[in-house]
C-alpha cells in the first residue's frame, strides 16, 4: 500500500475516485456503510468494507476528504459514525478528472471511432 501511495503521489486511483464521487453524491451524511452501498449499486460490483475504509483513509491523507466523528444516535445502539465530507481540493480534483475524461472522449469521437 505504501508503495502504491508513493507511486501515485497526490493522484488517485479508480476506486478512490469512485469513493470520492460517492461521498459527494450521497445526500445523507456520508459514512462507510452508505458509501459502500452506493458504490455497489452504481458500479454493480461487490465492494468489501476493508477496501472502502482503506480508500477513505487514503483520500483523507491526501486532504481530499475530511472526517468528523458524529453524534451518537439511537440507531446502531448509540455507536457513533465517522462522517466524511469532500474538501474543496477534492471537488477540484474530481472536476479535473472529469475534464480530462471528457476531453479524451471528445477526441475519440472526433476520430469517429
Amino acid at each position, binding site marked *: 500500500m505504501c508503495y502504491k501511495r508513493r507511486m501515485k503521489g497526490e493522484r488517485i486511483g479508480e476506486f478512490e475516485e469512485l469513493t470520492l464521487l460517492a461521498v459527494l453524491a450521497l445526500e445523507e451524511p456520508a459514512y462507510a456503510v452508505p458509501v459502500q452501498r452506493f458504490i455497489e*449499486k452504481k458500479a454493480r460490483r461487490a465492494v468489501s*468494507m476493508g477496501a472502502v475504509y482503506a480508500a477513505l483513509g487514503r483520500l483523507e491523507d491526501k486532504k481530499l476528504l475530511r472526517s468528523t466523528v458524529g453524534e451518537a444516535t439511537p440507531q*446502531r445502539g448509540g455507536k457513533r459514525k465517522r462522517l466524511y465530507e469532500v474538501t474543496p481540493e477534492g471537488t477540484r480534483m474530481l472536476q479535473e478528472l472529469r475534464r480530462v475524461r471528457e476531453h479524451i472522449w471528445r477526441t475519440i469521437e472526433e476520430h469517429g471511432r
Partner: protein
Amino acid sequence: MTARGTPDRPSDRCRSDEASGRREATTPHEADAPEPVRPHELRPPLLGRLMLRLCRLGTRREEIESDLRQLFEERAAVRGYAYASLRYCLDAASLRIHRTDLRHRSLKTLPAVRRLRLVDTIAVDLRSAVRMLRTDPLLTAAVVVTLSIGIGAPSSVFSLLNGFVFRAPVTADPDAFFRVARADREPQGIVTPPQYDVLREENESARELAAFSTMALSAPLGVEDPTDVPGWLVSCNFFRVFGVDRAMAGRLLGPEDCTAGLPVAVISESLWQHRFAGDPSVVGTSVMYGAVPVTIVGVAPVAPIQRRAHDPTVGDFVAHLWVPYTAHPAFRATSTFEGLLLRDTFPWLELAGLLEPGISRQAATNDLRLIASRHEELFDPSPERALILTDGSRWEATPGDMLSAFAMALSLPALILLAACVNVAALLLSRAVSRQREMALRLALGTSRAALLRMLLLLESLVVSGLAAAASLVFVYNLPPLLVRFFEADLWFGAADSLAPDGRVLAFLMLSGVLAALLSGVAPALESLNPHLAEALQGRRGFVSRRGPSRTRRLFVAVQVAASVVLLVAAASFSRAAARFTDRGSPPPACSSPKCTSLRTDRQRSTPSPTRSPRRPA
C-alpha cells in the same frame, strides 16, 4: 434473478426500507431476496466475529464493528442470513487485507491516539522511576532531604515577601478598597485638608473617601502612666473604609465630630484592655492626652495600617487612639508634626477609600485628576504630583522597589538552592556511573537518546523534586511564622497566623521544584547519554574518559565549592546583622539622607505602645 440494478419488486424495496430505515438500503444482489430474517434475531457468524476480533483496528474498532453489524442486518433482511454471513466474513477478511491503511489511520494520525501513546510512555517512565527510587532508598532519602531544604528556603522567603508586597490592606471588600499615592512617591502626605474637602465633596467614583494623618500623635494618656500612646488624626469615615462598622463599646466617630472639631477620641481594643481593664464605663470620661483633654467616646478594633501608601520603607502602624482630623489645632504641641506641619498649606493627610460599584481604579484616578484640574488654586498641576489610585498593596504603589526587594531577599536562598542542586547532581552522577552498562545496553538496543533523556529526567529529577517540594511544605508552613515571631516583624509581613501560603507561594514552590529538577537532573542525564558503548558493554567504565574524570564533574566540584564559600560568607554576615539587630532592638539606618533621618525620627517617636513596637527586619 432480475437484472442487476435497482430492485424491481416493490415488496423487496419495502422490506429493505423497513429493515434499515434508509433510502438506499437495497443493492443489486439483494433485489431478489428470499424470506427476510428479523434483525433482532440476528447475530453475525462466529467465524466473522472471530476474524474481526483478530483485526488490529485500534481506536476505530467500535465504529467499524457497528458499520459491519449494520450492513449484516440489512443484508440479512433483504437477502437472507447465509448471504449476509458470507459478506460479513468477507468484509472482516478484507479488513485484514487492508490492515496497513487502517492501522495507519487509526494508530498514527489521530491526535487523541498520539496523546494516549505519550501518556502511556510517561506512565511507563514514571513506574520505572519509582522502581529505581525504591532500589536505593538511602540515596533517595538523602536527595529528597537536600532538595527539600534547597526548595524550602527560597519558598519560605518568598512567602514572607508575599505578605510584605502583595498583602491586601483590608479584609472586608478588598476589591473596592483603594489608596491614593502621588506620582513622585515623595515620603510625605498626599493632600492638605482643603484639598481633601474638595475631593470628598466633588468625586463621583468613591462611595467613601477617608483621610488620616501621615504622621502620628504621640503623648502620654492620663497622668498615671508616662508611656506615650500613638494616636492618629482621622476623618470620621475612617473606620468604615477600613472595615470597622461597629464599636466594641460606645460609638465610632461620626460626621458631627468632624464638623464640631472637638477633641473626642476612640481608643483601641488593646489600649482599652491593658490600660482600662476592659471597663465599659471609660466611655464618656475625659482624660488628658498630653496637654489636651480628650473625651473617650468609644472602643474599636483596627488592624495595623500601612501609613504611607507609596513608601515601602515604612511598616504598618498600630494606633491606639483616633481623633477627628478637624481637631488638629489642639494637638499642634502634642504631635510629631512638631506643631509646624499641621497647617492647611502642607499635605499631611493620606487618603484611602472605597470605590462605587462598577467603577474601576483607573476611572476613579481620572475623576480625582479632573477635580484637581478644576481647582488649580488648590492643587499643584505638575505631573509628578499627579494622583494615582492603587489597590493598597506595596506592589502596586512601588513595583520597582518591590522587584529590588525580591531580588535582594531571594539571592541568598537562591544560592542555597543552587548548592543543594549541585550536591544532588553529584549524587545522581555517581548513580549514573553505576548504571552505565544499563544505559549502554538500552542505547545499543535502539532506544533513542530523547527517550532515555526523558526517562532519566523523570526518573532522577522530576519525581525526586516532586517529593522534595512536598516535603518542603513543612518549611513553607512553619518557617515564616517563626521568623516573624522571632523578629517581631508582623507590622511588616502581617500577623504570623496570616502567613499561610497562598496560590502565589505554592506556584513559586512548584517553579522552584521544576528548576531544582532541571539543575540537578540535566547534567547527570546528559552524562549518562554519552557512554563509550563498546567499553561499557564489555563491563569496563564507559563514561569515564581515558584522561580522567569528565569535564562535567570537574565543573560540579568548582561550582559547589564556589557556592559553599559564598553561602558561608553570606551566612556569617547575616548572623552578625541579626545579632546586632536583636541586641539593639531596632534596625540599623538604611541611609543617611535627610529623608531617611526624618523617617527614623518619626518611627522612633511613634513606636512605643502598650503591646509592641514595629521593628525593621534584618
